[in-house]
């Protein structure tokens, strides 16, 4: 259990209360180890977003328990959830969601500032990350002057900045063409392998699944898994 980056044990989530409650996630169990890159696929309304919100410490489950590493994170006060997201989870959103008035380098440095890290070390870390993701020449640009693929790479760099244990990607390729999308996902996969961390990617794009180690399906709030990636 110690090597689990994320462990969900019979997790359910219901919205509303009493008569009108709707069960969005139904008894989901999932164990993700270091070095694993997991894809989550499913039709719209299947509960993917809720799953990601619970895995990302944005929502607490109605039932079930969740661990990250050795820490149980099932029910934490808002402030600790915040710290957990800041230090242990990296987010990559649809269409990147970078802060428009920060330069590429500042997007990364912001993460360090939020985590109260100051001085030279975070700057070195940011430069290093940008170099690895091929963004060194874009360091002082603002998001508006970057291409869609570059923005998404910046988002990935930002997600890795505080060296999280788990990366959550919410349809990171939604706004990219398939070639660029693939490059971006490839980079994500490479980093996961390199750092022995874990990543979960929610996606519609079946062409990306061969880059993932595992693929789990969500349908009507239930989760099922195929161990072998499928190539269509």
């Amino acid at each position, binding site marked *: 259990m110690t090597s689990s980056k994320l462990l969900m044990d019979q997790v359910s989530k219901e919205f509303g209360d009493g008569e009108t409650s709707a069960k969005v996630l139904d008894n989901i169990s999932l164990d993700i180890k270091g070095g694993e890159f997991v894809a989550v696929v499913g039709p719209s309304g299947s509960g993917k*977003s809720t799953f990601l*919100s619970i895995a990302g410490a944005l929502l607490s489950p109605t039932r079930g328990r969740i661990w990250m590493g050795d820490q149980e994170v099932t029910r934490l006060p808002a402030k600790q959830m915040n*710290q957990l*997201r800041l*230090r242990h989870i990296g987010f990559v959103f*649809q269409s990147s*969601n970078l802060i428009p008035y*920060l330069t590429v380098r500042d997007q990364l440095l912001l*993460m360090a500032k939020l985590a109260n890290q100051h001085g030279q070390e975070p700057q070195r870390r940011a430069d290093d990350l940008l170099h690895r993701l091929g963004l060194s020449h874009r360091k002082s640009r603002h998001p508006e002057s970057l291409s869609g693929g570059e923005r998404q790479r910046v988002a990935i760099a930002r997600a890795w900045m505080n060296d999280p244990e788990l990366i959550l990607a919410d349809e990171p390729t939604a706004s990219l063409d398939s070639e660029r999308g693939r490059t971006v996902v490839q980079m994500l996969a490479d980093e996961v392998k390199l750092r022995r961390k874990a990543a979960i990617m929610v996606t519609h794009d079946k062409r990306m699944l061969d880059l993932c180690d595992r693929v789990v399906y969500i349908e009507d709030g239930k989760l099922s898994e195929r161990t072998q990636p499928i190539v269509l």
Partner: protein
Amino acid sequence: MFLALRELQHAKLRYLLIGFIMVLIAWLVLFVTGLAQGLSSDNASSIQNMKADYLVLQEESDHRINRSVLTGEIWNEVQSRPGGNPATPLGVHMNTLTKEGSAAKFDVAFFAIDVESMLAPRVVEGTMISNTDADLVMADRSLKEDGYRLGDRIVDQATGATFTIAAFTEGQSFSHAPVIHMNFEGWKALQPNPAKPAPIYNAIAWNGTPEQKEALVRDVSGIEMITKEEALQGIPGFQEEQGSLTMMIVFLFVIAAFVLAVFFYVMTIQKINQFGVLKAIGAGTGYLVRSLIFQVLTLTIVSLAISIGLTYGVSLLLSGIVPFSLTPSVVLLCSLLFLAVSLMGSLLSLYRVIKIDAIEAIGRAA
């Protein structure tokens, strides 16, 4: 304040525009405040600078010094009371005067005082007059700008009485007219019936505690007592003048609050999605709130600094033309009020920022 500063830098035009509006409003606030203070002292600096706690007036005189008439008996009664409270009579007479040999007329207020009492004004030029020489008076130095000099002879238009200016005083005006101080010997010449021996006063300046004042009003019949503040309000036009300027200032503060509130609210609404992302990646609500407050304060302080500079600059250009007086303590008070108002204006935005849920960042393609 990493975020706040970078946003200010990036969206320069927006913040410059709103800053410009704030500068104009703050400038107007300070200028109108200075004008109100200037007018107030131009109107009634004699009362403001008077070293007295209370003024004794005739009852039913409606707080107006010039409506009150006190007889010598009342003065004797007030003066002879045990307790030894300092008291001194005052005669006030508004009139028009001319310079001997000239036809130009000026409105003035004659103040008859005991020149050895606490009502004696500060002399800035010439020598203090005595209580005995009926011919000598002391004029406010604003009359110098109208061409009066030491030794000039002035003629009271109503009675034809003449006096010699023996000294100039500072900060002495009443009802927008310069004050001419004289002793009670000279005062006799200004009475409608100079032959009548009994002296007539308009007020008695009196020092004491509120309890002593109550006792005095109870014991002496036919009088009322007012504070200096009430005496100011009783000067014809004072309340109206100050009231309309105060109303302008209050409105400007309200406008400033709303302008800032609307600007930051619209900015915040625009950035809701961004705030959602920031919260999702781990920025605490406190950090975002501090960021917003920092921006509001930076904008307000910079605008205030510029407008204070502009206000003093313009007041230098207009000095002597417009009555203007702005002390550092008033500037400080206005600035603090302005800061408080701008923070109040940002409350709505703060509320929105606090309410934003990090979860909004998930599943959004904005």
